[in-house]
């Protein structure tokens, strides 16, 4: 375990010793994508041969694929040659020197969300060395993980330090040519997280991208791989409630989870990328492939997400339930306001015997937003005794928004029990009047009703995250009723 703890140490320390002092400006590549760009990315990261080969194959496959058009979203065609595929992090000179230089509107939002002061600076992109003051937190965290033998590092680091694990598991859940954006990510992924929990280990703390300090610049093609070995347990938190601004409009991340026998992975996301302004200008396109593989018997993968950001979201965190008695869960709250569009949901593929899955999806649509739930429950012929329960509710606020439900159920084994329920309703004038008649303001009443609507999902989030998520929802729906 010594090497692993050293890795963590070097990761944590490197940041403070060096920051971004290398002359990275010369590292950036011009816009456009060809094999040379893929080779250059790999070379910049000093990747071993296998990684370059993998990227190149992905690139060649991507060339033969077409952009998906089935989702219920509309946006102008993306020019993939106008994107720079290796955008180096901003240098300190380009960043605001202190919070005084940051957009006051952004600070106001941080305030509403109750984000700690030291974190605000990091989120607003203030030069890191100047503000990061949680060294002690990181040190405690590093010691605890190394004692347990947990590997938690950046993806780039893992490629170099743990090639055998990366080679074994990378692409084993989301194959390179799984879909157009997954193939693109496989070719040009920038960085991301790598987690390995050894046999029988219960990860002593919740792992969060917040603690993996260099997360701020994982860039637009993030790649995450989490492997939970037999009998292990891990809870991973991705993102944060604060609005994240990013210059890159297209984000195409891939997340792969592998749960071996008796292992459990809980993956929680709060996504709040910039959604664009009230007129739909700007905003991130978030096209994500997230998939978990319950490879061993009695394994469990649970996805919980609160999605309020991005102009366009296209995301279906899924579970492949291979192991006998394995369990897949998906709990989601998605909020779209103004001109946001989201096409999101999950896939539960039941392969093993006695596998079970639960889907709870709560969609809130306001303003002129369009939101679709798209889900697939497939019971394969060999999945004797499979169970699924799906609850999928939409709440509409305002006349011009839309909520759509496209659930697919493909049942190829007669012993399956599959239940799907869905409702769509609006916040009724009667409910609001009732609350107001009891002295509660309209805004508070809406918040109260919305939080009540989402309760089933919030209770799946880690405690602090749940409180933040609630506040986030209220901020996201500000001005939706009126």
């Amino acid at each position: 375990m010594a090497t692993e703890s050293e890795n963590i140490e070097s990761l944590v320390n490197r940041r403070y010793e060096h920051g971004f002092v290398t002359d990275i400006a010369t590292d950036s590549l011009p816009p456009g994508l060809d094999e040379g760009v893929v080779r250059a990315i790999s070379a910049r990261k000093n990747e071993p041969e296998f990684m370059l080969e993998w990227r190149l194959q992905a690139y060649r496959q991507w060339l033969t694929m077409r952009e998906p058009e089935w989702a219920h979203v509309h946006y102008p065609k993306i020019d993939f040659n106008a994107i720079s595929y290796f955008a180096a992090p901003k240098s300190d000179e380009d960043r605001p020197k202190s919070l005084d230089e940051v957009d006051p509107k952004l600070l106001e939002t941080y305030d509403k969300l109750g984000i700690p002061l030291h974190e605000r600076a990091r989120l607003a992109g203030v030069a890191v060395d100047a503000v990061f003051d949680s060294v002690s937190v990181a040190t405690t965290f590093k010691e605890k993980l190394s004692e347990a033998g947990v590997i938690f590092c950046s993806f780039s680091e893992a490629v170099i330090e743990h090639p055998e694990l990366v080679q074994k598991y990378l692409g084993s859940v989301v194959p390179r040519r799984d879909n157009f954006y997954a193939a693109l990510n496989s070719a040009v992924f920038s960085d991301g997280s790598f987690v390995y929990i050894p046999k029988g280990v219960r990860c002593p703390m919740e792992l969060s991208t917040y603690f993996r300090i260099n997360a701020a610049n994982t860039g637009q093609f993030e790649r995450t791989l989490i492997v939970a070995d037999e009998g292990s347990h891990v809870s991973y938190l991705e993102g944060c409630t604060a609005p994240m601004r990013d210059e890159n409009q297209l984000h195409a991340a891939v997340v792969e989870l592998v749960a071996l026998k008796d292992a459990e992975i809980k993956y929680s996301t709060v996504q709040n990328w910039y959604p664009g302004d009230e007129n739909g200008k700007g905003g991130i396109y978030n096209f994500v492939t997230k998939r978990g593989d319950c490879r061993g018997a009695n394994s469990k993968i649970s996805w919980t997400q609160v999605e309020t950001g991005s102009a366009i979201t296209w995301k279906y965190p899924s579970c492949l339930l291979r192991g006998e008695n394995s369990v897949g869960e998906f709990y989601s709250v998605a909020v779209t306001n103004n001109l946001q569009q989201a096409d999101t949901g999950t896939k539960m593929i039941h392969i093993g015997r006695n596998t079970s899955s639960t889907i709870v999806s709560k969609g809130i649509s306001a303003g002129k937003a369009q939101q679709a739930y798209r889900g697939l429950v497939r019971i394969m012929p060999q999945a004797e005794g499979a169970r699924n329960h799906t609850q999928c509710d939409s709440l509409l606020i305002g006349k011009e928004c839309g909520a759509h439900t496209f659930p697919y159920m493909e049942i190829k084994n007669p012993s399956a029990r599959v239940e799907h329920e869905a409702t769509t309703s609006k916040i009724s004038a009667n409910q609001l009047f009732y609350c107001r008649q009891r002295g509660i303001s309209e805004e508070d009443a809406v918040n109260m009703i919305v939080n009540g609507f989402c309760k089933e999902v919030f209770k799946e989030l880690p405690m602090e995250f749940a409180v933040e998520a609630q506040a986030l929802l209220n901020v996201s729906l500000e001005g939706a009723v009126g």
Partner: protein
Amino acid sequence: MTYEGKDLLDLEPEERAREGIFLGFQYPVEIPGVNNAYLLKTAVNAKRKHQGLGEVDAFEFLKLAREKMAALGMDPKFLNRGVNEGFSGGEKKRNEILQMAMLEPKLAILDETDSGLDIDALKAVAEGVNSLRNPDRAIVLVTHYQRLLDYVQPDFVHVLSEGQIVRSGDKSLALELEDKGYDWVREAASA
């Protein structure tokens, strides 16, 4: 429409509530997922804040709510259910009276609180109303039937027809109405 020097029609519903007016609904709405206790606590504190008083904490609130519920013969578990969610007609009406008891209004208007109640629920609601009677509080009961008035003895009875008070009296007027029906009042009014 003036109330304590303020034009009620100028006020938003929540402002009226904070000014001490309570409206008991004929058909209280269900608000799925919103905890009954939570709504009540928020409402109580909204009013206290308006009056310049400090907020009650969860502990005080629960103690108070439990007391009031016991007085109304309500099971404390109602506090943890969604607002009126899956409540029977009688339970909804009791819940209205509980809210009234917690918010301590100066003026309470109970709109057909007796409709659709069985006799036990009717008695419980009436007892709740009676227990809240005091010289600083006006309660307006809107009803079509005498049976509620068997349990709540009114100080005044007004007959409202087409938006106008057409006759006023004491509790004997209600008995007379039950006996003779409404037509004679209407005829007398139009004559």
